[in-house]
């Protein structure tokens, strides 16, 4: 699991140049495939769904690449698209299956249990279920902080939330995960 890749100014310059933007975007794909995949996968749990959403994320970025002015960091922009795609997907699934938020947590837990792409131990399985039981915002914050060790400032730029609120969200998420483990024991 990778942390946010460092910003490459030359890459951004090449993205802005019509002659080199396709090749530069190929590099963007190579650089950001893994971090974005894990971010999406931790939200939707299923590999197949994560694969589709990752593809959509890059295609959306490509379809509006000329609008990327460079005011925000490239990584921030891509993470925003990926997280929006994941949230939209979960909302759409909830509406499609006509289930509540609680039911969706149970559905995610089932997906985790049936996941063929998992080789972790029981503790890791339990942690995945605990994370799936968190509210959406806390889940995103926890994943970014715990797995990616992302700085709160970067998270703030991606999620558009204050650093204080993010710290509080993470703290609450950790408490709830602890509670989840206590209840299960």
């Amino acid at each position: 699991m990778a942390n946010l890749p460092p910003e490459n100014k030359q890459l951004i310059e090449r993205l802005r140049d019509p002659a080199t933007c396709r090749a530069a975007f190929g590099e963007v794909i190579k650089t950001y495939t893994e971090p974005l995949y894990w971010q999406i996968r931790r939200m939707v749990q299923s590999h197949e769904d994560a694969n589709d959403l990752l593809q959509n994320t890059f295609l959306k970025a490509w379809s509006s690449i000329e609008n990327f002015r460079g005011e925000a960091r490239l990584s921030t922009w891509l993470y925003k698209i990926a997280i929006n795609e994941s949230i939209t997907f979960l909302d759409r699934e909830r509406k499609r299956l006509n289930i509540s938020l609680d039911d969706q947590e149970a559905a995610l837990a089932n997906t985790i249990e049936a996941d063929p792409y998992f080789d972790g131990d029981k503790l890791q399985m339990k942690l995945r279920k605990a994370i799936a039981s968190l509210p959406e915002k806390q889940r995103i914050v926890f994943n970014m902080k715990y797995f990616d060790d992302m700085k709160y400032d970067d998270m703030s730029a991606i999620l558009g939330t204050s650093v204080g609120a993010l710290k509080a969200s993470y703290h609450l998420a950790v408490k709830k995960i602890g509670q989840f483990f206590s209840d299960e024991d």
Partner: protein
Amino acid sequence: MKEEKDILAKIDRQSGMTVPDGYFESFAASLEQNLPVRDEAENPEKIILSPPTLWIRVRPYVYLAAMFAGVWCMLKMFVLRSSPTDGNAAIDRNPILAEALGNDAFVDEYIIDDINQWDLFDEMMDDGVDASSFDLAADSGFNDGFVDPAALQVQND
């Protein structure tokens, strides 16, 4: 909080999730090859804007004219509704009504006939007619709660 941190430290930031072998490499290569062509980004000079049609050029003026026409209609309606003398109900614009009001028989039948019995009674009193000569109790509707019957009790001779 320490207990929770112990659990998380034990897991050591590993979720246990995996991907198929070579997934990231094949995903990146496949997507890069299948990126759709986008002239807006790759060949902006290729995009030749077609000249605007007549409708596109006049459209703002048509919309503006339609908006003013709508406002004018609303004002006209407002004026018509707020000044009834300007409408067809005015006597000078309604010859049938004017003729009817000029006809004494019509006025007697439809307007004078509607006179209140109390007005008539007052008129008669003013003219010196003796009220005691009438049998008020026999006149149905005359004592419908307007006056105290005792006060108007007829002196039967």
